[in-house]
């Protein structure tokens, strides 16, 4: 176990992609302390900003408000990062395995273009969760992102596989240009949900204003939701599928692309 305690909030964002289990597993305490991080354009050492305890482990705990520490767990393939506080932008971007848990808030680009692993944020997150970077054709390729609070714009933009579940409210363009995968909206979303989506599933447990390019298909409980519900239940997320309690209204689209995607909106029985 490695514990990194932030000495003080950096004055500008600190780029710390070296703080990844793949890197620290090979290094002693001294080696971790000497790892390079970037404060703006200046190269500095990890121990300029963190108290470092432990070494040679793929289990990392970061303590303090790391909301200005970017790229934590970048491209990690294994191990576990626990952030006891907030985390900065690009958390877990490009990761393919392992687990990241943040007790506080995340920021933009959480799990951008990730291809495996699990990211769990207890609080709120920013925009572009699991999204494709600008100019890139494909976002999240697999894995799971769980957000306990709210999320910003373009959640799951161009994602191809994997699951993003946001318990709180989500802003505009959730599932923008989505190619596959599943987004679960615990409290619905704001405008233009599923815009230009080609494939994939957006499940909303709350009301969602739909674009006119989505067509109503049927009200039912898709069989695959039982599998997804079991998977999410193991992660503490509830996805209803009991037909005695309600069903999902299925809308297909976005027909302006044209798309083969779907938006499933939970409709409680009797509501």
């Amino acid at each position: 176990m490695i514990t990194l305690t932030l000495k003080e909030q950096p004055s500008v964002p600190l780029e710390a992609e070296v703080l990844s289990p793949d890197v620290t597993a090979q290094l002693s305490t001294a080696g971790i302390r000497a790892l390079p991080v970037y404060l703006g354009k200046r190269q500095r050492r990890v121990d300029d900003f963190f108290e470092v305890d432990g070494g040679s482990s793929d289990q990392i705990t970061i303590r303090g408000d790391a909301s200005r520490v970017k790229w934590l767990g970048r491209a990690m393939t294994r191990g576990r990062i626990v952030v006891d506080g907030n985390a900065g932008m690009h958390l877990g971007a490009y990761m393919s395995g392992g687990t990241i848990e943040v007790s506080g808030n995340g920021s933009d680009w959480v799990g951008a273009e990730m291809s495996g692993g699990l990211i769990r944020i207890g609080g709120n997150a920013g925009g572009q969760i699991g999204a494709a970077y600008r100019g890139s054709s494909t976002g999240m390729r697999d894995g799971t992102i769980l957000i306990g609070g709210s999320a910003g714009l373009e959640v799951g933009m161009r994602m191809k596989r994997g699951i993003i579940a946001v318990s709180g409210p989500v802003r505009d363009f959730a599932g923008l240009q989505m190619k596959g995968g599943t987004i679960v909206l615990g409290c619905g979303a704001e405008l233009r949900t599923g815009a230009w989506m080609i494939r994939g599933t957006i499940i909303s447990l709350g009301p969602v204003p739909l674009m006119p390019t989505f067509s109503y298909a049927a009200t039912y409980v898709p069989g695959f939701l039982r599998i997804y519900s079991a998977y999410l239940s193991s992660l503490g997320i509830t996805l209803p599928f009991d037909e005695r309690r309600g069903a999902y209204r299925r809308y297909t689209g976005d027909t302006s692309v044209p798309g083969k995607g779907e938006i499933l909106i939970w409709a409680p029985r009797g509501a």
Partner: protein
Amino acid sequence: MARERRGVEIVDTFAEAFDMRAARVIVTAASDAWARTAATSMTGFATSVIGCKVEAGIEAMLSPDATPDGRPGASVLVFAFNAEGLGTRLVERVGQTVLTCPTTACFDGLPAATDRVPVGSVLRHFGDKLQSSKFLDGRRYWRVPVMEGEFLVQDAFGMQKAIGGGNLLILARDQAAALSAAEAAAAAMRNVPGVILPFPGGIVRAGSKVGAKRYKNMIASTNEAYCPTVRGRVGVESQLPESVNSVLEIVIDGLDRGAIEAAMRVGLDAACQPGVVQISAGNYGGKLGKHHFRLHEL
């Protein structure tokens, strides 16, 4: 040397079994009854690879907590001679009997198997390009639109080496005693995981030998050595003691040797009933199948 159990002689012989390929299919439905209906339909006309190209049976009925989608289900084992044949038969049977059955879904029951055979990825074409898929935890599921709603089927099913043709022969004084003993044996053997008894009710009255002595083109023909009504005919080398007037066989297919041994063990014990003279087993002198199950070693 002969051994006895409750007055029944256990013949010092062995059952001869063969390599096969097997898949386990989990069929779920809205109710236990519909799961059983689908599984029964899927395992119909699947008694022997000789005539049916496949052997299949219900391994067990499953409670909702034992199925992937939390609904009542049935575990079906399907056996064929090779991987190609198994794949073809699975697509045929799942497509014709499970896809068509109300409320069902179909899942792979051998997730750890490295050999995979495409099933959902073939059946998806029934959706006429209106199908879609979901990918979760390394597994792809196809959603095929049907009039009732959607048929959910896993993309590929696990396949493993297996053994077919384990057997017991129950030699009895009369038909009633043979049937009673065979029913008891089959009931006991059905509780063993990893095996099926592919014949009707788990019991076969028409055991066969390879080829025929009197017809050139027959693949299999009656096993006259155990047919009481032709005992004494010229050219028939009967294996039946004088007191035996009816014989029934139980054929066992299993995922591995241990499962077949366990099933034969409990079956043999249950079959030792009043009226039964001998428990024997069918073999071809050890020339055809490499798996030998000696009755005295069970």
